[in-house]
């Protein structure tokens, strides 16, 4: 009898745990989504302020875009260096990964960890541990698109 009760208790605990597991992730997804939306939106909004300023100062649209990318990359590299960007990233998730600042963050964060292996083949190589694959696929898509256009137009 006692053993039966213990087993029942165990099963109830298990069912309860299953129920908890089912319910638990949902508020996290909502919270993560809000964080990602807000942080990603703020980063892009800040970039838009810079773009609008440079446009009103008479810069061309292409140049303003390049300049703002450089500024955002510089800021992200700096804030990654002093450790703030990764703290933000713990909460913001994709909100801090998807913008170009996340690309710069990936470069600095992975390179910093490998200083021990030296400045040339440690830092110099590890810069590309995430940026490398990203650029490979970016260029691959661009070149394929370009080649298709060449063959379609001949």
């Amino acid at each position, binding site marked *: 009898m006692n053993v039966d009760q213990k087993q029942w208790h165990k099963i109830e605990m298990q069912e309860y745990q299953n129920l908890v597991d089912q319910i638990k992730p949902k508020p996290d997804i909502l919270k993560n989504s809000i964080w990602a939306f807000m942080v990603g939106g703020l980063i892009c909004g800040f970039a838009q302020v810079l773009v609008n300023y440079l446009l009103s100062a008479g810069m061309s649209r292409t140049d303003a875009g390049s300049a703002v990318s450089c500024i955002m990359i510089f800021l992200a590299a700096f804030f990654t260096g002093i450790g703030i960007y990764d703290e933000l990233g713990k909460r913001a998730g994709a909100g801090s990964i998807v913008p170009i600042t996340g690309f710069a963050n990936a470069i600095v964060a992975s390179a910093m960890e490998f200083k021990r292996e030296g400045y040339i083949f440690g830092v110099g190589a590890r810069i590309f541990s995430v940026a490398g694959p990203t650029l490979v696929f970016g260029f691959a898509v661009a070149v394929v698109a370009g080649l298709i*256009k060449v063959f379609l137009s001949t």
Partner: protein
Amino acid sequence: MTPLYMAFLGGGLLCLIGQLVMDLTKANITPGHILVGYISIGGILSAFGLYQPLVDAVGAGATIPLSGFGHLLVQGTLKAVDSNGILGAFSGGVEAAAAGITCAIVFGYVAAVLFNPKG
């Protein structure tokens, strides 16, 4: 000029999609996968002419996410094909993205050398 709130909404939504992909799929998706996915999908959409309308609507909200970097590479390549033919297919992408890529490498290297990881 794109209004600020449009950039906020566009950028926020693009990041939200990335977050949902990370949270709702069982596969272990790392930040690296997100970056590769965004640059590739952005480039493909751009090649079909589907990304430019988004850029027109939300400005930096579409150019700052990494999909906008893919868009920049593809549009640079397609423009260079018009002027330089097949050589342009290989040179246009880097030309368009030169500033961003160089900044990322140089600032990234300097920051990694100057600062030490926490903890």
